[in-house]
């Protein structure tokens, strides 16, 4: 008896995994682009927030 790959037997099961992956990946890309485009001064400012007050 072989039980591997039984998930493939549900029709359309991959759509769930694919959409989840799509959502995650889109957010990741958007944020990555943002991080590279963001204003250096702004980043420096945010970066110093912990040191701002005691």
């Amino acid at each position: 008896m072989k039980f591997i790959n039984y998930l493939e037997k549900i029709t359309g099961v991959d759509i769930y995994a694919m959409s989840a992956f799509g959502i995650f990946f889109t957010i990741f890309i958007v944020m990555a682009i943002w991080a590279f485009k963001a204003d250096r001064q702004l980043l420096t400012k945010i970066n110093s927030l912990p040191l701002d007050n005691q």
Partner: protein
Amino acid sequence: MNENVSLADSPSQPPDMGHKSLQVEQFSYDNKSVQLFAFATIFWSVIGMLAGLLAAVELYYPGANLNLPATTFGRVRPVHTNAVIFAFVGNGIFMGVYYSLQRLCKARMFSDKLSRIHFWGWQTIIVVGAVSLLAGYTSGKEYAELEWPVDIAITFIWVIFGINIFGTILKRRESHLYVAIWFYIATWVTVAMLHIVNSFERPFSWFKSYSWYAGVQDALVQWWYGHNAVAFFLTTPYLGLMYYFLPKAANRPVYSYRLSIIHFWSLIFIYIWAGPHHLLYTALPDWAQSLGVVFSVMLIAPSWGGMLNGLFTLRGAWDKVREDPILKFMVVAVTCYGMATLEGPMLSLKSVNAISHFTDWTIAHVHIGALGWNGFLTFGVLYWILPRIYNTPLYSKKLAGTHFWFGTIGIVLYAVPLYWAGFTQSMMWKSFTEEGQLKYQFLETVTQIIPLYITRSIGGTLYLSGVLIMVYNLYKTVKAGHLVKDEATSAYPLPKAITTHGKEHWHRWIERRPVQMLVLSLVAVAIGGILEMVPTFLIKSNIPTIAAVKPYTPLELQGRDIYIREGCYNCHSQMIRPFRDEVARYGDYSKAGEFVYDHPFQWGSKRTGPDLAREGGKYPDSWHYNHMMDPRIMSPGSIMPNYPWLLSNEIDTASTAAKIRAMQSLGVPYRSGYDALANTDLQTQARGIREQLAKDKIKTAPNAEILAVIAYLQRLGTDIKSVKP
């Protein structure tokens, strides 16, 4: 180190939006909550590590449990793991979040009352949890052992915590959200999701339940949970703490803020998918295993990005590190984070996993994370925070340095022997003689590594001694100071409207709306997470059933519940992987269809004892009787605990009907009305076993629990065995 403690300092600068008319607001930070959580994390670190030490000693000296049910390994080990994760690290998270969130938002925590409910609620959960685990109330799923009433309480308190942090973020006086806050929020959302999904269970009494899922599904959900609990309880919140307290302690900003953003998004994006690496070579479908491996390997990138970001923050300040014990703790913590996150992906490679899985290698790996990363970062933060909220210097820097060395040597003495033990045992399991026979009995592979277990417990003792030095040091510090309950400060409020000049870029738009972005992205993460789980729910009706696999008889079911109660799964797996040595040692490898009635699954994760998936029919009933009474009668040198109370305790037959009904509601095909008849069948089967035992001159009470345990053990794996002689 404490010379620049200033409590009421002047507000830095008015917000940059050009609203000079805004008035400075006076307010205070709540240090009382920080103090409470700090004391709690100290207290539970000692308790949790003592439990760990007891468990470690029991592995070479089983008598250390004094033959009491509550102190046997199977019950102490969950107390240890739950205590260090949810009590020690949990309170550590709350301490750090309550301290840093207020300061990063320039606002007091949203509600003092909620803070207090959060604190006392969490401690109550811990105490009730520990007592119930010792009493044998467990769901039988690792790191999620707590039973359903406690699960509900956890959900409630977690919501309180959420309201408190989101409330604080909403009333903040700083428009930008520092990266640490993003880590905190991701922690909150994901832990909520993990906890709820994994805790679906069907209660059948006021404190006991069966997992909603069965077999393969249960395993998939459990390890999706287990892996992400490591990610989102032990890692993301602590990364938040690193991003706040490391700059604080070093008095310089993080090396690259850009990197920290990438670190955050790639980490939460990738982590979510890596769970199946806990189930390599099991009956889990292949594609899910491969997905787990690929994403686990990808995890190296963000993890190392984060580690380097932390370490580079100290570039040019290494002289400071040599001086300051706080920075020393933090550097080792971050380094251990890097080591553990390099090793993790490595352990996810199928070829490595084939060797490491089920051995002490895993235990060594998690302790690099637990003792090094979580432990040392907590200590660093404690040494940093307590003097500040008590407005006094640390009692002794030298003692903190001593603590550091005890801890570091403790980690080495803990981990190295276990790596060795894991490797040795795995090699012995897989050795064949020239004639093609297994070279070693299982027991030989156990006795071989006993000296390494002893060394490990010495390492643990050293680490715990370091913690005790810290307790003394911090006690002296607190005695000398005075808690500044409400730390006065001031800041400009946020301007009501934000004016913009010129053309807006989309990324500016994002920058202006941190909270909206936050909510949006978290909704997305939640949707993604749920979508990911859907196939798991769908396969319920699609798992191929094996005609020969039948539901447990009432007696076997009772025996299985005793097996769960005693925590046998902490030492025994029930999952034979398709390897030559495992098939030779334990029998035909495990199939998905064999577990369809297993609520919860009991695959286990560690083989301190041999696999039991095909234990049925291997020995006569009397062998099990004697072995459970005292394993050393049948297996000299065994480290399995004695279970003498199983011989005298009576089976709880009053619960049989409710258990059958609960199983029916979960889809186990007992015929309708069977609940009323179940005890009759139970008695009949028990009588049969009693008669078997009587033939070997063993007298048992008619309802002794041992009969149920024997019934269960003799049933294990026989569905398929009987098909193929």
